[in-house]
Every structure is written in structure tokens, then in C-alpha cells.
């Protein structure tokens, strides 16, 4: 039995309980083993992290990728905003993404002579989150005093004329001569973006105002929503400022490298192909799980805790094919949640239920700052620790989360309770383990057994369909 992979330690944040209150990680319990993602799918690419090269390998990859990017338009007297997003700081502890941001700044400065290079780091629904990362990773010192700031969707707006009417960006994101789009290819919210224009999404989200984000999540529909991002990116205003994009390229087993391009859509096609192939493989495998207890145990909101790159929100929809665009509504997305009526049932009969394989969720450690009551309402949930429950009760986004959950004092009690009630010994831990998954042995056996057939099915049946639906040529 392989030892568990040590998960990221709890992180001090205003959105989570104090790290000292996380007394036990689920992966420390007896009977927990681990699988490397490459053990399941040997065809996954080699990665630079985790690996012996460490952070310097990310720096070298960023510099190599940026060497091929034309920066001639940036003049010494210009201003440049490097646009970043919170999510990158959850990948392998966050330091690799921070290092890429530092490398972008250094390369622009050395190649162009430009000295006014600022960091504008956007957020999801936790408006101080990137401020915490800026300090944690020394980005404030690296970019210079006052040049690295967090931006939030309720900050002052700038109207942007698009081919579908006026949308709104965050003014501080665009208050420079040039913008650099610094992101990553980790799939994360496939229930929202459906791997359609994944590379473009922050223009409709973390760089956007509430008017725009509300349009995405309320006005367009589940498969048209991400067009908002394309409309903004294609606007003459944004095009006049766009210098280039630089992405940390990801796989379920870690960081593959860095990709940079002045053509965002060319980069988008590359990550659409890799996203469908790599993450689609892992998600399809997770769809094979017949029953399990989920344990969430990572410093981020409940839905974003992840195992081998698959977030809990997506495992909650793994009973359906999230990549198949013929499926209008995944089991979980905000449109789906909106379409549950007063009686707690879907308004349309074809709306799929949340993944019935999830027999119970043990919430050992996760953050506030994302509306999560839909999960505790529809999936039996146990929260570890009164302090954590009280934190959620005080969170304006989760005022009913604990109402649907049971609260137990310790991790051991919670897991024992879950085992007893569900009768299953299959446990899947969403703790962001680097390079693999922490899980129980019976579940490991199941995944190892099913992986080869999943691999064949993805390559021969699903991937060609997924790429065809997105207009991406099958051959790279």
C-alpha cells in the first residue's frame, strides 16, 4: 500500500479557521493510501512540478516561453498591468504561479526597459484572497511598493463596448497601456465554462465587474455563458491593450510547463485539446465510482477542493459527461441550482440529480466565501468542528450551510460516522495532493481496474466528440 501524499498544510486566511484548529488531516487516518495520476494513466505528460527541479524549473519554463513572444510594442515609458487570478495560487501550493508572475515582470522589464509594471490580481467571491497571496508570496516586494494589488468585482467599473452591447470591466484591471493575461490551464470549473474558451474566461470573470459576472451566471444560459468572456476580449478596447498571454500549463499530475502567445485563441485551442484529453480522462474515471465518501480537506471553498485536478463541484456532476455539450445542464452549475423549485426538486424532469455515488461528504477543512448550501442540502454532509461550523454561520454566502449538516468534533468521529451510515469503505479525499490522489484502498483498487478502459473510451469515442463540438481539429 502506497503512503498517502502529504496534503498542503492549512493556510492562515480570513476565509478559513485558524490552522491550529485543523487537528487531523483525513489522509492521516488508517487505511488511506495514494495513487499517482500517472499510475492510472501512464500517457499523461511528464511534469516539471512536482519534481526535482522545483520552483527554478518553473522560472526556466516561463523565461523560455516568453523568449518567443514579441514584446516590441511595449515601450520604456509605457505602463503594463499583469492580470492574474486567485485560482493560480491554489495550484501546487501557489508558489509556481507566483514565480511565473515574477518571471513575467522580470522578462518584460529586461526586454523592453519598461519599469512601470503592475500586478492586478482578480478574485472570485473572496475579495481579499489575492491580497493574502500577494503578501504570502512576496509579490508586493517583487513588483514594488503599491504596484501589486487585489481587484474585486465591486470596484469601480469601466464600460466596454462589445458586439453584444456594453459590458463592464474592473477599471483598475485596464488602467495601463498594456495588459498581460497571466493564467493557467487547470480545468477547474468545467461545469461553468464547459471547456469552451477556457483560456478567455477571466475576461468575463476575475477581471470583470458584477454586471458582467451576473450576465454570465444569470442571463445567457449554461452553454452560451462563456461567450461573455469572448465578447469582452474581442472588443476594440481590450484588443488595443492586449500584449500577450502567459499560462501555467497543467495536467492532473502537475505542472507541465509554461505556454505564452500573442494569439490567445491559438493558446486556447491548445489548452482545449489538452484539457479535454487530460482532465476529461480523470473526470471520466471518477464517473466510474459507484459509491464513496468524499472528504474535503483543502484551504479553499468546499466546491473547489480537488483531487487529481478534479474539483468537488465536478465530482458532484461526474454521473454525467460534463464535456458533452449535448448535455445542457450538468448536475451542478448555478443554472441548475437556480432551476430547483421551492420543494427542493428540479423544475425540469431531465435535470440530473447530483452524483448518487457520493453517499456522504465529510467537510474536514474548507473555506467560506462561496455559496455552498446547495451541496449540504442535497448531499449528506458532516462538518468537523464547532469553530468551522460557526465560521460558516457568520458567512453571508453560507447562512444556511450548516442547517443541512451534522457537526461532529473530530475527523475520526466524522469519518467513522460516515462509514457507519453509508456502509461503504470507498473514500475519496479532495485535499489537492500533488501529483495524485489520496483515497482508501478499495477505491484505489476500483480506479486502477477501470482506468485502462476509460483511457480507451476517451481516446477512441469521447475525445473526438468533445473536440468536434468545440470546433477543434482532432489532430494537434
Amino acid at each position, binding site marked *: 500500500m502506497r503512503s498517502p501524499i502529504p496534503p498542503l498544510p492549512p493556510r492562515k486566511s480570513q476565509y478559513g479557521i485558524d490552522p491550529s484548529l485543523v487537528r487531523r488531516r483525513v489522509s492521516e487516518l488508517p487505511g488511506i493510501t495514494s495513487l499517482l495520476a500517472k499510475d492510472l494513466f501512464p500517457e499523461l505528460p511528464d511534469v516539471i512540478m512536482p519534481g526535482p527541479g522545483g520552483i527554478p524549473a518553473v522560472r526556466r519554463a516561463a523565461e523560455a516561453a516568453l523568449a518567443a513572444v514579441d514584446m516590441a510594442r511595449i515601450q520604456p515609458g509605457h505602463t503594463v498591468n499583469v492580470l492574474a487570478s486567485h485560482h493560480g495560487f491554489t495550484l501546487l501550493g501557489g508558489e509556481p504561479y507566483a514565480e511565473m508572475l515574477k518571471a513575467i515582470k522580470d522578462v518584460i522589464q529586461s526586454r523592453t526597459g519598461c519599469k512601470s509594471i503592475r500586478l492586478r490580481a482578480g478574485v472570485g*467571491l473572496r*475579495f*481579499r484572497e489575492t491580497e493574502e497571496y500577494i503578501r504570502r508570496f512576496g509579490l508586493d516586494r517583487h513588483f514594488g511598493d503599491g504596484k501589486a494589488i487585489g481587484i*474585486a*468585482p*465591486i*470596484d*469601480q*467599473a469601466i*464600460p466596454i463596448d462589445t*458586439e*453584444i*452591447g*456594453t*459590458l*463592464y470591466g474592473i477599471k483598475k484591471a485596464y488602467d495601463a497601456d498594456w495588459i498581460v493575461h497571466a493564467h493557467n490551464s487547470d480545468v477547474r470549473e468545467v461545469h461553468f465554462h*464547459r471547456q*469552451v*474558451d477556457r483560456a478567455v474566461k477571466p475576461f468575463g470573470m476575475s477581471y470583470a465587474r*458584477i*454586471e*458582467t*459576472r*451576473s*450576465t454570465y*451566471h*444569470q*442571463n*445567457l*444560459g*449554461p*452553454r*452560451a455563458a*462563456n*461567450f461573455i468572456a469572448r465578447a469582452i476580449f474581442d472588443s476594440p478596447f481590450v484588443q488595443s491593450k492586449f500584449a500577450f498571454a502567459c499560462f501555467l500549463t497543467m495536467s492532473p499530475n502537475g505542472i507541465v510547463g509554461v505556454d505564452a502567445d500573442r494569439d490567445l485563441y491559438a493558446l486556447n485551442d491548445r489548452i482545449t485539446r489538452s484539457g479535454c484529453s487530460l482532465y476529461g480522462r480523470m473526470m471520466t474515471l471518477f464517473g466510474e465510482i459507484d459509491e464513496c465518501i468524499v472528504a474535503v480537506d483543502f484551504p479553499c471553498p468546499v466546491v473547489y477542493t480537488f483531487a487529481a485536478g478534479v474539483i468537488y463541484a465536478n465530482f458532484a456532476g461526474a454521473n454525467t459527461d460534463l464535456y458533452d*455539450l449535448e448535455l*445542457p*445542464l450538468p448536475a451542478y452549475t*448555478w443554472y441548475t*441550482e*437556480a*432551476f430547483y*423549485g*421551492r*420543494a427542493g*426538486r428540479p*423544475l*425540469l424532469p431531465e435535470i440530473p440529480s447530483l452524483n448518487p455515488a457520493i453517499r456522504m461528504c465529510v467537510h474536514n477543512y474548507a473555506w467560506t466565501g*462561496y*455559496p455552498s*448550501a*446547495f451541496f449540504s442540502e442535497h448531499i449528506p454532509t458532516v462538518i468537523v468542528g464547532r469553530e468551522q461550523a460557526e465560521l460558516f*454561520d*457568520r458567512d*453571508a*454566502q*453560507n*447562512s444556511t450551510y450548516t442547517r443541512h449538516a451534522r457537526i461532529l468534533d473530530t475527523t475520526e468521529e466524522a469519518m467513522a460516522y460516515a462509514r457507519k451510515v453509508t456502509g461503504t469503505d470507498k473514500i475519496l479525499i479532495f485535499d489537492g495532493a500533488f501529483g495524485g490522489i489520496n483515497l482508501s484502498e478499495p477505491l484505489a483498487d476500483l480506479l486502477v481496474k477501470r482506468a485502462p478502459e476509460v483511457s480507451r473510451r476517451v481516446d477512441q469515442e469521447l475525445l473526438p466528440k468533445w473536440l468536434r463540438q*468545440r*470546433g477543434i481539429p482532432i489532430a494537434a
Partner: protein
Amino acid sequence: MRTIRMLAEVDAALCTGCTICDRVCPSLAIVTDRKVHLASVDADRCSGCPACEQRCPEGAIHMVVREKPFDIGVKVPPEDRERVDALCRAARFHPEQLVCYCTGTRAEEAAAAILQGAHTPEEISFRTGIRTGCTVECLQPMLRLLDAAGLKPVPPKGGWQWYGRTVTAWDIPEAVKKRYAERGFYFDEDIEILERVVNAPSQDP
């Protein structure tokens, strides 16, 4: 119904009167006195969202637990049911459709508030609690409902609470739909789903 447990409190020693807090408050509960450069909170209007606390550049605002939590919300009176449902459907929402994921506010509640005299997003927020969780995702439903009611609210003067209504699925130009049909955007198919939801039967007898 939303339970208000928290209250914003201003630390006068730290407040510089920069006005950011009153520009972002969704229920207009916080006001800066520009003469003395100090923000103050109307505890009766504060809905307990942390927008001001999260954007204060000085860390001068703290969210504290209220001594007496209270519920806010708007009920749909039976005599208004038909008008409420009609308003929701005119805005292309099912009456039971959730329009705020944090507070669990449904379209019918926001519509009832409008019919009872809430004629701005801020007043709807104050009465129902909508947009007092994340404060991000539920603006457009309010603007669509107000528009369907024939109301033309204007944003708070000098505020950043909101700037304008935006496109819906039904407004996407045909040329745009055609141009991007091969790139994975399912505009018309999504409209079909949205309309089926709007016209779905109620779950209650």
C-alpha cells in the same frame, strides 16, 4: 427569508472618509460624512454582507455578530400571486427560480418586493436580502425584473453599486450566433432550455 446575523462596524480611529464603503454597499446602509471624513453604518439597514469590510483600504470596518439576529424577506400575498407570476415570466424567470445563490432568494420574492414599492436594486436588496451574500452574481435578475415592471432605476449617484443592464440570451444578434456556432456556443439551444424553465409548472399545489 434571510437571517441577518452580522453588522458592519466602523473604527473611527482608522476611517479616513475615503467613501469606498458607501459606494459599494448594496443596501445603502453606510454613509460617509465628508465634512468630518468618517463613515457610519445605519444598523437598521445593514444586511450583514461584508462588501464594505472587504473593500475598506484601511481595515477600518469589522463585521460583528449582532446581539439580535433578525429575518428579512418579502412574502407573496395570495392576492398578488397572479401579478407576481406574470412579472417573473415577463422578465423570463420562473417564479420559483433562484435568483440569488447565497441568500436563496427566488424571483417571486424580488418581484413581490417590486410590486410592493421597491423600485431600485438597493431597495429590493434591503427588503429581500438579495445581493447581500457575495454581492456579485444576482444584479441582472433585479434589473430584468425592474425593467419588466416598466421601471427605469438609475444607479446611486457617484456609487459603484451598479452601472447598467446587460445582454440576455434573447438579445444575441443572429449574426453573432451564426459566427460562433462551430465553437461550442449553444445559443438557441440554451434559449430553448431557459424558456422551458420559465414555463414549467409550479411545484406547489
